């Protein structure tokens, strides 16, 4: 690697000059290696350590409760996810009293094998249902209800699932009906 250009000199008088020239050149290979290693390190660490931001838009809050208009949605398209304590979650599809077929309240876990599979399945079912009704654009609606005992990680996890599964409509609702509270406590 570190060959030095020593032109073939002539007589013995030149010998001294040549040895001086040799000393003046330094092998820079190792130095360049080190410099690029450092550059790579700095570039990677500066971009990777930046925190990510999850955008969250909430609906306008009406101070006057009487002015709030309840929004009616097709219960066949809605899935409600209740976030309970100790990283538990319960979901049902449709209304709690009259869930759609296979949508009775059931406990799931977070992540790939748990709620994601169920979300993808229901999403497909809803799409089939909407297409049958002639409105294929009506996707599924997910209502997220975090209970008082659930933690922030649960909320972020479930919002993340919404992004992964690409649920078109989802909302965070804070009101719990007594039946839903019972459902979470019973589990």
């Amino acid at each position, binding site marked *: 690697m570190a*060959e030095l250009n020593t032109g073939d000199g002539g007589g013995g008088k030149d010998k001294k000059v040549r040895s001086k020239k040799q000393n003046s050149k330094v092998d820079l290979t190792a130095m360049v290696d080190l410099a690029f290693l450092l550059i790579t390190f700095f570039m990677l660490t*500066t971009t990777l350590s930046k*925190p990510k*931001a999850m955008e969250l838009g*909430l609906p306008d809050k009406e101070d006057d409760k009487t002015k709030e208009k309840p929004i009616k949605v097709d219960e066949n398209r809605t899935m409600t996810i209740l976030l309970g304590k100790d990283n538990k979650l319960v979901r049902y599809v449709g209304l709690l009293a009259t869930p759609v077929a296979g949508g009775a309240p059931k406990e799931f876990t977070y992540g790939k094998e748990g709620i994601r599979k169920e979300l993808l399945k229901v999403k497909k079912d809803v799409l089939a249902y909407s297409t049958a009704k002639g409105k294929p654009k009506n996707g599924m609606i997910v209502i997220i209800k975090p209970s008082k005992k659930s933690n922030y*990680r649960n909320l972020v996890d479930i919002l993340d699932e919404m*992004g992964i599964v690409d649920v078109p409509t989802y909302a965070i609702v*804070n009101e719990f009906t007594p039946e839903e509270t019972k459902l979470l406590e019973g589990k």
Partner: protein
Amino acid sequence: MAVKTQKKATSIDMTAMCDVAFLLLTFFILTATAKVPEAMPVDMPASTVQSKLPENNLATLTIGKGKVFFDLKGKEVRIKTLELMAQKYGVEFTEDDKKEFSIMEGFGVPIQNLKQIIEMKSAERSKAGQPGVPKDSIDNQLKEWIYNARIANAEINDKELEFAIKGDAKEEYPSIRKVMDILQDQKINSFSLVTGLRGKNF
């Protein structure tokens, strides 16, 4: 002769390459901003989102252990916000205090005790056991901080201030909701949740 020319070809002059490499290295080191030590370290939950947090024009509300810490980007905005808050609560700050406040990290004390925190050294602040910005209905200073920061930012940057919530993963939902409610009371319906990065295969 032929052997000698071959030898010449194997060695490359590294000087220019070395120059470029070190120039880049210097550039990266100088442009990188030093990480400000956090007043309250929190364990952020991870998510798969890729979008990054804005660099300026941002207020961060850190929530952990039931306490809320307030942090704001931009020196001028911070000074202006502090002036507005001082006016509102009738607390005096010297020019030195304001200068120090503009470069310090997030804080979590009532404004009456803010002066003591400003006068501390950076290492002492994290050990000071700051109680969090008061946010209950009797003394809702967090609301005022948010409100005045928005005014200050609108005046200086001529932009609407953005908000980010940085919650601890184990924090229970009601305290997060409380902060969201305070934001929503001021018609801030869109904000960011700060998360860490998670692998794509999650």
